[in-house]
């Protein structure tokens, strides 16, 4: 269980305060996929970074299985919009970065197992410059998964990919979600992606009057159909535009 409780984030830019998040609340069950949507600049990445422990919240707290998160931990993996691979490390060493403290033998086993999971066996020795966009993003996912996290945070991980690669990777992430029993929180600006991939969608509103919660959860029932997804798309679009 991941608990997002009363999270606000105020950025102080030369005296002018900017509220990126206002009183955001959400309970996320284990093995759920949640999408975060909203207009650009509404605070999606900020929320994800707070959950990942990269940023401190101004108020509120995040709890994972009843423990407050203060800094990054191996329980939570994060994949950014760009793959962020070190160009001077090959694929193997890039993934190794997240398990540096384990011994060589364990590293070897875990890395080859993870590369297999993301469909990149035999790519260990490649340099980042030799990878396609989709492959690089898979390596980034592998780097997050090799620590065996419970929660995977994805910040627009597919937005830079062509539509074919994108569909492919959607499928792949869904499979990983099933096989690894992950909880996934995913930022996206593609509403189709949000409705088709996730259990629930959290809309973060752009305008943030003081003291008023600025997010809204959309529950979506199962079983889904194409028709139902289209209905949800329309609903979500309307809510985002009204925000």
């Amino acid at each position: 269980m991941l608990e997002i409780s009363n999270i606000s984030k105020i950025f102080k830019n030369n005296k002018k305060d900017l509220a990126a998040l206002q009183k955001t609340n959400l309970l996320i069950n284990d093995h759920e996929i949640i999408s975060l949507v909203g207009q650009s600049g509404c605070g999606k990445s900020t929320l994800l970074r707070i959950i990942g422990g990269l940023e401190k919240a101004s108020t509120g707290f995040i709890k994972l299985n009843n423990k407050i998160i203060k800094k990054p931990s191996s329980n939570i993996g994060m994949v950014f919009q760009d793959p962020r691979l070190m160009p001077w490390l090959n694929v193997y060493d890039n993934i190794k970065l997240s398990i540096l403290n384990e011994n060589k033998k364990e590293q070897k086993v875990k890395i080859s197992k993870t590369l297999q999971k993301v469909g990149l066996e035999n790519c260990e020795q490649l340099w980042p410059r030799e990878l396609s966009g989709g492959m690089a993003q898979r390596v980034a996912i592998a780097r997050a998964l090799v620590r065996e996290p419970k929660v995977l945070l994805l910040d627009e991980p597919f937005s830079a990919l062509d539509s074919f690669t994108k569909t492919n990777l959607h499928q792949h992430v869904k499979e990983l979600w099933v096989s690894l029993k992950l909880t996934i929180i995913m930022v996206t600006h593609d509403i189709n992606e949000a409705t088709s991939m996730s259990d629930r969608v959290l809309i973060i509103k752009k305008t943030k009057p003081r003291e008023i919660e600025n997010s809204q959860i959309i529950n979506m029932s199962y079983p889904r159909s194409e028709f139902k997804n289209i209905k949800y798309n329309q609903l979500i679009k309307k809510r985002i535009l009204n925000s």
Partner: protein
Amino acid sequence: MNIFFKINNNKLYKLLKSLYNLFKAKFSQPLIGIILPVIILLIWYFLAVTETIRNSLLPTPNEVLKEILILANADTLFSHIQITLTRVFYGFIGGGIAATILGILTGVSPFIRKLFDPTIQALKAVPSLAWVPLFILWFGIFENSKVALISVGVFFPVYLNLMMGIRQIDKRMIEVANINNLNLFQTIRWILLPGIIPEWITGLRSGLALGWMFVIAAELMGASEGLGYLMIDGQMTGRPALIIGALILFAIIGKLTDELIYLSAKPFLKWKESLDTMQVGANNA
């Protein structure tokens, strides 16, 4: 010219094609680099032998070679080269170390940067030769003042490249270190150091090139030994062959020392190898 008439077109075509394939093969880079010097040599040979330019101004390549061989036989050539190399070496080490330390400090700490950088930038604007009188006053007319001058030349490129390299380290990469709980040592070992090595090497290479420029300046101004001294000697005694010979030696040795840095840095630059092999041909000697 006769030769070309004897070869029919077909043979000529085959010859050109095999030459072309040779260039495309593994050693194409060094071979292509040799083309221009060979052409220059041929033009030079032509101009000198036909006396298009008077021999007292432009000696033939043979004469230059002879001059170098005479010096080499008398064993003085080696000691001239050695003394010049020694000066460049100490200047390079001195300027390189100072620049590396200051470059790291100003790159890492905004406070130290604000404290030092304006002064260093101002000093950079001082023309190199303007240091000479001061250094001679401070360090005497012998080795120390020359080494100090060369250090100044080496210092700035190394300092600037390293500082910029550190400042341009991608904050997003540091975030990857944070999300994976890397400690300070691990962050330096896996992210900071490999990230700045290319800039540092670039700085060292341009620093060395400037070191070679400054050693000539130092030796032209007053020396009794060294390649720069040979040039002055050639000028005083009216021996253009000696001047040109020393010039060629400068080019060759400068190129070799640059290649030495490049080769020792190569293992650290493997990840951008394709980029760097392109640069080899473009090196300045």
